[in-house]
């Protein structure tokens, strides 16, 4: 018992906090206590409610029930500014910078040092930024605009921002996801110093070893509910995983064994300057190939280029032996390719249109005669697929914007499956949907592969990749860094390749 619950008052705490978004209960009666001088880990699978919890602490979301306590006193944060003024610094998973402004302005926005008459002291903003970068050992120019920074550099700017106001509470949502080994070590050094100076730290990471390295206590969430808060001493990684998952993995990832056939999608030396380089791979009939990697590694960009949404500078794409013309999605569709995009709200659906018409969008070739649409044909095609995918709706004429995330995703899938694709690319097929629907989507993908469809699945959800893929491709900074068989692919080997640490990751 080296770390019993301290007897002091927590700096920042949540007591019995619940938060719902429409029908989705993101948090259910969750409590969390952050103590000065202690690093606290928040563990849980994707969709467990970690980000919502952070946003409740940061004043972005107001809890439906329960309280936020600052130094033991209930507080209400009316916005991020309130939380910031209370000394809460947050580093979000995806950097939130102003692309048009300089790095220095990004760090000090709203808090710039001022001269007489309230004027911003641009010189000392720049100097303070340079000091922060020196402290972090980062080689960045304070005057550089944030536009064009790599994800890792953007993350470093976020970290500098959090350091810039001596925060009492530092919250980090996967800050290491895009960092290299040495950058992680440097970040941890800074965090330890802050902790020793009395700051409370809340840390989220998918890399369990980092949790054990940095933190003293851990709180686990599952499906929005609190599971446990306990000292890390005496816990093993397996214990933690068991608390996080808490259900039968086989049920969530119903992967059928299939026979792989001929090569259906062949990508050769595909290059888009500065985005991805020299990407080559095959996907065979009956196979699910996982494409893993960190956010910003270029996975979605490869998918977009293969489908013809973006142009590419070099290389070629073949579908069932037919070479595709670059930059021509309609020809790619005709060749048997379908792409279920990453962002269903912006790219996958027309939110204001009905279910029927959204599904119908890919089928004009079949449902149009002499340039006139046959509404009846469109309707029966849509009903067919909506029923096959068990989309839950009141009427087919309902606007898709009113459906839940999971049902929206099913509509996107229906829209593309209705084209009877030979090659299906799915980009983050289960992001932000509930566990039940997730399992359904997995069953569907598995069944499609069994029918002989070649599936390329991009996912940031590591268990999903490991659970569903026959083969795993890993991208790191625009290049394919590893190709692993189902047997070789483990959380460690995939993460090692995704972070560019391939040479040391082959121990398992």
């Amino acid at each position, binding site marked *: 018992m080296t770390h019993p619950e301290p007897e002091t008052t927590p700096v920042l705490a949540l007591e019995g906090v619940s938060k719902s978004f429409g029908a989705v209960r993101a948090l259910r009666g969750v409590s969390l206590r952050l103590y000065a001088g202690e690093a606290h880990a928040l563990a849980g699978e994707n969709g467990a409610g970690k980000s919502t919890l952070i946003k409740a602490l940061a004043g972005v979301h107001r809890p439906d029930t329960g309280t936020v306590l600052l130094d033991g006193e209930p507080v209400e944060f009316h*916005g991020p500014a309130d939380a910031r003024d209370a000394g809460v610094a947050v580093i979000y998973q995806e950097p939130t*910078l102003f692309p048009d402004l300089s790095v220095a302005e990004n760090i000090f*926005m*709203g808090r710039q040092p001022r001269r007489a008459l*309230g004027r911003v002291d641009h010189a000392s903003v720049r100097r303070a930024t340079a000091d922060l970068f020196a402290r972090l050992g980062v080689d960045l*120019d304070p*005057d550089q605009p944030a*536009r064009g920074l790599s994800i890792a550099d953007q993350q470093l700017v976020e970290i500098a921002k959090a350091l810039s106001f001596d925060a009492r509470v530092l919250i980090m949502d996967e800050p290491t996801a895009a960092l290299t080994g040495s950058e992680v070590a440097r970040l941890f050094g800074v965090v330890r110093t802050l902790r020793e100076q009395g700051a409370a730290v809340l840390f989220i990471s998918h890399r369990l070893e980092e949790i054990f390295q940095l933190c003293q206590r851990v709180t686990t969430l599952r499906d929005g509910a609190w599971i446990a808060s306990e000292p890390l001493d005496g816990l093993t990684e397996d214990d933690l995983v068991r608390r996080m998952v808490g259900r039968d993995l086989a049920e969530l990832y119903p992967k059928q064994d299939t026979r792989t056939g001929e090569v259906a999608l062949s990508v050769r030396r595909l290059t888009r*300057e500065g985005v991805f380089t020299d990407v080559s791979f095959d996907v065979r009939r009956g196979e699910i190939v996982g494409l893993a990697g960190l956010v910003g590694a270029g996975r979605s960009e490869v998918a977009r280029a293969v489908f013809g949404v973006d142009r590419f500078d070099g290389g070629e794409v073949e579908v069932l032996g037919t070479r595709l013309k670059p930059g021509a999605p309609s020809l790619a569709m005709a060749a048997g390719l379908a792409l279920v995009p990453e962002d269903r709200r912006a790219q996958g659906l027309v939110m204001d249109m009905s279910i029927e018409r959204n599904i119908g969008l890919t089928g004009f070739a079949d449902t149009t005669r002499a340039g006139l649409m046959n509404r009846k044909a469109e309707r029966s095609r849509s009903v067919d697929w909506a029923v096959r995918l068990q989309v839950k709706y009141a009427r087919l004429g309902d606007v898709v914007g009113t459906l839940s995330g999971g049902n929206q995703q099913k509509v996107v899938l229906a829209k593309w499956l209705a084209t009877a694709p030979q090659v299906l690319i799915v980009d983050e097929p289960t992001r932000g949907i509930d566990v039940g629907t997730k399992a359904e989507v997995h069953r569907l993908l598995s069944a499609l592969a069994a029918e002989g469809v070649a599936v390329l699945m991009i996912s940031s959800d590591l268990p999903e990749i490991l659970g569903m893929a026959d083969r795993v491709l890993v991208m790191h900074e*625009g290049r394919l860094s590893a190709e692993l068989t189902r047997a070789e692919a483990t959380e460690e080997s995939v993460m090692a390749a995704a972070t560019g640490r391939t040479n040391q990751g082959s121990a398992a």
Partner: protein
Amino acid sequence: MTVTATPVREEAVPEPAAGRRLIDKVFKARELAVAAVLLVMLGATQLSNTEFLSEQGIKDLLLNATILVLVATGQAVVVITRNVDLSVGSVLGISAFAAGTYLQDGGSSLIAILLAVALGALFGALNGALVSLGKVPALVVTLGTLYIVRGIDSIWVGSQQITADDLPNGFVDFGHDGIWVVPYLALLALAVLAAVGYYLRSYRSGREMYALGSSPEAATLAGVPVRKRIMTAYVLCGALAGLAGALYLARFGNVDSATGSGYELTVVSAVVVGGVAFTGGSGSVYGAALGALLLTSINSVLPAIGVSSVWVTAINGILLLLAIAVDRILALRVAAVLRKQAAQLRSARHA
């Protein structure tokens, strides 16, 4: 320290900050480019017609530009926050009439101007409230207020007209006189321009307007009071449209119910030609002012070189498209440079 040796070395070694330099240059150049086009145009006209830049000629140029510069300054602030205000023409018209009505009954010039500014600010606050609270696209909201304000104006004004004879002499003189070739009105516009430019550059709230336009989500997370800033931008824009209305009255001495109709489109053109991006977060009020000066100067240039002034609108349109084309091409080039730079950095890290 020989100066001659350095340029060769700079070319040989790729600078890591090359992308930044280029961006800096582009943004500065964007305003410089407008200024250069303006100077070349004025110079060429002067060569073909030596009367063009006479004392009266310069005075006319400045007088013509003043009102557009003022309204474009306010509009630029709104556009920087990733919004737009289409009601400025209507607000200008009704403010001019309000000031004129007050002066007709023998009021003081200063109070007339303040009245116009206050009325403009009031309509600005209405726009700001609708846009920031209603979360409705600014284009639609201000299109609505454009018609509403114009409607109120028409009902109020009816077939009345205010002419210079109705106005006190001091006020009319203020609209024509100046110091040497610089009219008072232009001095006033210049002072406003400098003040707004300084505010945007040197005050937290000014910087927050750029932040807000650059990324509304990031601004919310950074604790920028988004609604308040949008409100400020619209109130400022409305107040400047009101001020422009009072100056319009002083300059032309003639206001009816159609005053300022269609003006909003000229204003938006000036802002865009001056390099304020419609996507928010970049550009400056100085650029917008230069854009305004350029557009109004064409009005004077064409008659001076013997071209019918019916060409003015077409040429304005061409300038607008050119400006957008240049911006787009530059943005693509900057993106390409940044991508290459990122690729170089990566390979350097891997090495």
